C-alpha cells in the first residue's frame, strides 16, 4: 500500500496515504521523488535507444522525416494507450480494443457509404465521427457495467467483447472491408494534413494525451481511479461509487477506441477488419513498459507515452540500420521483460527500506 502512493506522478495527490516518509534519509524530497518516478527509468531506455540508432545510422535516424513518421505511426496506439492506462490502473484490463475500433470504424464507415461515400460532405464526416465515438463509448460502458455489477473478471468480459464486437462488424459487412468507408475530406484533413509541418494525427494524439494526463494527475476522477486500483474496499467504504466509476473508465477506453477508429479511417481509408487482432497486446505492452502496474493503483499517462515510443523506435531503428526482421520481435520482447524486471527490483529494494 505505501509503495503505491510513492509511484504516483508528482502531480497526482495520493488518494489514500500521503507520502509520510519524506526526508527520512535527509535526501531532498524532489530528488527522492525524481528517482522514484517509474517513467524516469523507461525514459532512460528510450533516450539510450534513440542515441544508439542516431550514432549507428548517422543522418538517417534522428531526422525530421523519421521522427515525424514514428510519431504518426504511434498516434493511434498512443490514444488507445491513454485509455488503457486508466483501465489498468483500476486493476482491470481491456482485450477488446481492437475489435471495438473495428466495430466503430464499420459503423461510421457504413454511414459514410450510404451518405455520399468518398465524396461525402463535412456534415457527414461530423456525423461519422460522432457515430464512431458513440459506438466505442457505448460498447466500453457496457463492458464496464458488466465488470462493475456482474462480478465477472474484466479479462473475461473484454475477451467476450473482443469476439462479439468483431463478430458484429463482420455480420454488418459480410466479412469484407466495404469500399468508400472514409470521406476524402477526412483523409485529406486528419489523415494526411499538417499544421506547421506537424501532422494532424500527431497533434490530436498529443492533445488527447495531455488532456487525460491532466485528468489522471490533477482531478478527482484521476485520484478515484488510482484509489480504486489500490484498494477498492476502502474506496467503497469511503462512499465513492466504485461501480459507476468503473463504467466511466471502461467507457473512456471505448470512447478513445472510437477516436482511434476515426484516426484509422482518416489515415488508411478502410475499415481493415482483419488488421486489428493484436492491437490489444501492443497497447498493453506499451502501458506496462511505461511503468503502470498490472495489479492496479499505480501508473501514469506520461509513462505510457514513453512505452508507446520504445517499440516504435526499436522497429524503425532496426529497419534503418538493416537488422533482419526477426530480431525486432526478439528485441521488443527483451526490452519489455527487462524494463519490468528492473522496475520490480527497484520497487522491492525500496519496500524493504
Amino acid at each position, binding site marked *: 500500500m505505501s509503495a503505491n502512493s510513492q509511484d504516483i506522478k508528482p502531480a497526482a495527490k495520493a488518494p489514500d496515504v500521503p507520502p509520510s516518509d519524506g526526508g527520512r534519509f535527509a535526501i531532498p524530497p524532489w530528488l527522492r521523488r525524481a528517482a522514484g518516478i517509474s517513467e524516469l527509468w523507461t525514459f532512460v531506455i528510450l533516450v539510450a535507444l534513440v542515441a544508439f540508432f542516431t550514432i549507428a545510422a548517422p543522418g538517417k535516424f534522428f531526422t525530421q522525416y523519421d521522427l515525424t*513518421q514514428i510519431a504518426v*505511426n504511434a498516434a493511434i496506439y498512443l490514444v488507445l494507450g491513454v485509455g488503457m492506462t486508466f483501465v489498468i490502473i483500476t486493476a482491470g484490463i481491456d482485450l477488446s480494443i481492437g475489435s471495438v475500433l473495428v466495430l466503430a470504424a464499420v459503423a461510421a464507415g457504413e454511414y459514410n457509404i450510404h451518405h455520399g461515400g468518398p465524396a461525402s460532405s463535412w456534415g457527414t464526416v461530423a456525423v461519422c465521427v460522432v457515430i464512431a465515438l458513440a459506438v466505442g463509448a457505448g460498447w466500453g460502458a457496457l463492458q464496464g457495467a458488466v465488470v462493475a455489477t456482474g462480478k465477472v473478471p474484466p479479462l473475461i468480459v473484454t475477451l467476450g467483447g473482443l469476439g462479439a464486437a468483431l463478430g458484429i462488424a463482420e455480420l454488418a459487412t459480410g*466479412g469484407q472491408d466495404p*469500399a468508400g468507408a472514409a470521406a476524402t475530406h477526412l483523409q485529406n484533413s486528419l489523415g494526411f494534413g499538417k499544421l506547421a509541418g506537424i501532422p494532424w494525427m500527431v497533434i490530436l494524439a498529443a492533445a488527447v494525451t495531455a488532456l487525460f494526463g491532466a485528468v489522471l494527475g490533477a482531478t478527482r476522477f484521476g485520484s478515484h481511479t488510482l484509489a480504486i486500483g489500490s484498494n477498492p474496499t476502502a474506496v467503497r467504504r469511503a462512499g465513492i461509487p466504485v461501480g459507476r466509476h468503473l463504467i466511466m473508465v471502461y467507457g473512456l477506453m471505448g470512447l478513445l477506441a472510437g477516436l482511434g477508429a476515426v484516426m484509422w479511417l482518416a489515415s*488508411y*481509408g478502410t475499415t481493415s477488419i482483419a*488488421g486489428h487482432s*493484436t492491437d490489444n497486446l501492443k497497447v498493453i505492452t506499451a502501458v506496462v513498459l511505461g511503468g503502470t502496474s498490472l495489479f492496479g493503483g499505480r501508473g501514469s499517462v506520461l509513462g505510457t507515452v514513453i512505452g508507446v515510443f520504445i517499440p516504435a523506435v526499436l522497429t524503425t531503428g532496426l529497419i534503418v540500420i538493416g537488422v*533482419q*526482421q526477426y530480431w525486432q520481435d526478439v528485441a521488443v520482447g527483451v526490452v519489455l521483460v527487462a524494463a519490468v524486471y528492473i522496475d520490480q527490483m527497484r520497487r522491492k529494494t525500496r519496500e524493504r527500506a
Partner: protein
Amino acid sequence: MSSIRITRKVLVAAGTVLVLTGAAACSSSSDSGGSGSKGGASGKKVRLITGVKSDPFYITMTCAAQTEAKAKGMDFSADGSAQWDVSVQRPLLDSVAASRPDGLLISPVDVSALTPSLKQIQSAGTKVALVDTTVTDPSIGMTRISSDNEKGGRVAADALAKLMNEKGSAIVISVKPGVSTTDARIKGFTEEMKKYPNIKMLPTLYDNDLPATAASQIQSTLAAHPDLGGVFAGNTNTGTGIATGLKQAGKQGTVKVAAFDAEPDEVASLKAGTLQVLVAQDPAAIGKEAVDQLAAAFEGKSVQKSIGTNMVAITKANMDQPEISKYFYKAGC
C-alpha cells in the same frame, strides 16, 4: 488473397481431422456403383465447390467452368463455403458426395483435413479435380490445376523493374513466412530481380497482416534507403498499409507498388494511382481447364496430372486493352 486462405486452414485443421476420421469410418459403404467410366462427357453430373463463395477470384473461376461445362453438355452446378473454414466446407462436400456426381471440382480449404472425405468420394467412383488449392496426399485428384505462383513473382518483378527504370532499391513486404503460395511468389520475384544489376533487393519484411505495421515498415525503409523505387505487396491488407505509408511520406507514385490479384477494388486502386502493377492470376483458365480435363477423363483420354496456369501483369498503361482487361476478376457472371 490466397495467403489468407492458407493460413486460416491450419487453425481449423487439428480439430476437424478427428471428426473426419470418425465420420469416414462410420460411413464406409464403398460400393463402386458410381457411373465412372461410361465414356462421353455429355450429360455427366459435375459439381464445383469453391473456397469462399463471395471471393471474386472464385466467382470468376465458377463462371468460366460453368460456361465450359454447358458447352460440353454437362449437368453442372457450383457452391462454395461462406468462409474459408473446414467446418463450413466439409458439410458441403458431404452433401455433394451423397448425390454421387460423376465429377467434382474442389478448392480444398485445408491441405489435410478434407482428405478422408475426398478419398471416400473418389473411391466411390467420382473423378476429382483440385482447383486453385491442393491437399498434401498425392493420391487425391486425377488432376491439379493452379496458378504458377513462382512465375507470378517473376511477372511482378519484370513489370516493377520496368516502372523503376531498372534502378533503385526494391523490397517485398509480405504477410508471414511459411505460406506456400506467397513464399513461391517471393522466391520468383527475388530471383527475377537478380537479372537487373542496378536494382538492389532489400531483405523481405513481414507485417503479420497488419496494415499499421506495413505503413511503419515502408516509412522506415524509406528513411534507410531513399532510393527505394519499388515494393511488392503480399496481400490486400499489406497493400493498404503501404499505400498509407507512402502517402504519409509524400512518396505516392514515386515508389511503385505491385500487388497480386485483380479484384474490383484493386483495379480501382490501379486507376486511382495507389497501385502501379497488378499481377492477375487466371481463375477463368483454371475453371475451364478443370472441366476440360474432367471431360477427357470421361472420354477415356489421357489427363494431365498437374497444370500451372499463366499470370499477367496489369498496369495503368495496358489496363484498357481487351486482352488484358479480360483478366479482371468478376463480381458476378
